[in-house]
């Protein structure tokens, strides 16, 4: 237990949210969700269908790389479900979980991955939301993860709403927010964190009524995690 890092807590938190779900998808630049889905399939939900951009379905024993859209996530697949298929699945309301990240997230769970500043004259041009503008409204749930928790990332209102929709949880290096009645609410605090630190590092005011403290990663979860990701790529996002 002494060697548990924030990345472990984040990945385990993401994985646990997949417990009763049928399928889950992650896109590019999504190390944590990739590891989390693999972890969930080993420990929490062996029948979870794992989808990714490459077309791979339920791939097993992949050698992980820093990229989350390569052939390593495709070659052992028994069939092909292309990215177009995944968007289509979501569009017809058959995608359970989409994982998405962003530069900013606001109190409503809206996300921004487009620009900082004015859209047409931006201070920073961001990468764009990838699938988020479509997946947030169409997936049954969108889980947002954000590898920084500070007042610049967790804002009252995002500079630009790249995507808005069915965000269910936001997982950060400090806690898990749950979206209740359209607003983010503190759901779980990581065991090594304080409520004050959350309040201090979040620009919007936090409803923290009834939050709980996360169960630290179990031994079973940590063993599986280290089997899946022995090189600790999950640290790379932090």
């Amino acid at each position, binding site marked *: 237990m002494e060697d548990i890092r924030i990345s472990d807590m984040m990945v385990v938190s993401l994985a646990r949210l997949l417990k009763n779900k049928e399928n889950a998808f992650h896109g590019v630049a999504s190390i944590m969700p990739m590891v989390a889905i693999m972890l969930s399939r080993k420990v929490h939900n062996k029948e979870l269908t794992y989808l990714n951009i490459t077309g791979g379905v339920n791939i097993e024993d992949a050698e992980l790389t820093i990229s989350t859209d390569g052939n390593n996530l495709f070659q052992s697949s028994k069939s092909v479900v292309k*990215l177009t298929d995944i968007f289509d699945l979501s569009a017809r309301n058959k995608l359970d979980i989409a994982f998405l990240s962003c530069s900013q997230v606001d109190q409503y769970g809206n996300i921004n991955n487009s620009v900082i500043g004015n859209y047409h004259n931006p201070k920073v041009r961001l990468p764009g939301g990838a699938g988020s503008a479509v997946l*947030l409204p169409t997936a049954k749930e969108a889980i947002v993860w954000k590898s920084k928790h500070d007042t610049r990332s967790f804002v009252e209102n995002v500079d630009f709403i790249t995507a808005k929709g069915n965000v269910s949880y936001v997982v950060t290096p400090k806690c898990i927010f749950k979206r209740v009645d359209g607003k983010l609410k503190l759901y779980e605090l990581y065991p090594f964190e304080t409520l004050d630190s959350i309040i201090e590092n979040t620009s919007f005011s936090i409803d923290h009524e009834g939050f709980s403290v996360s169960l630290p990663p179990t031994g079973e979860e940590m063993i599986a995690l280290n089997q899946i990701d022995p090189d600790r790529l999950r640290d790379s996002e932090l």
Partner: protein
Amino acid sequence: MDKIRDINEVIEMMKSNDIIAFGGNVLHRSPIQVAYHIANSNIKDLHIVKTAMAMEIDILALSKSVKKVSAGFISYEGEFGLCNNYRKAVQDGEIQVQEHACYSVIAALRAAIYGIPFMPIRGLLGSDLVHTMDYKTVADPYTGEEIVAIQAIVPDWGIIHVQKADRFGNCEIIGPMYEDDIVCRAAKNTIITCEEIVGDEYFKDKKADISEVFVKYVVELPKGASPGYCPGYYGLDKEKINSFKNKGTLK
């Protein structure tokens, strides 16, 4: 019927203001070497289309060859960070961004494939992209429901790098196909670059992943996806990417 061309011959056919859709995804089997060739030509004011890309646009932004980009995601993954040439060009107002969700790029290309002016699409509602990018809605003539409509994008050129192709344009793709099946159909003309040209008998026992019917020209261009990945041939050349990112030379 013989579609084999030299890389310079196909580059010469492209014109300023053309719409180019690239195959592959981010650093995977992306036609990065074609991007270098275009960057070193006189072709300017291109409109570049792809769901998720990195190095092609970063090269073409550096050479100031791009007028407009239609894409869902523009960044490297992991350690390589953002596409800084692209980012700077946008921030300086040199490149116009038609920001999409990856799915709306797919919808725009599907409309091209189906020969229709627009595709209705689920999602996007609630996003500031709808009004900022002027995505229009249309009423379903059967129920009156309003739904977002994505206008067709018909690329002048689809450019796809594959592992193997025959002289007719039949292609073998090792690893993920990404949106290449869509790009090759949507474009007015598709150019295949390949690691190897194979003989006429190669596709006797296995069906090609891309049919000759969707291919105009075939160019043998070994290492065409380098410094990105090309499954079965080579992996990432991190040093070359870092060198490009740091020194900013067009090869």
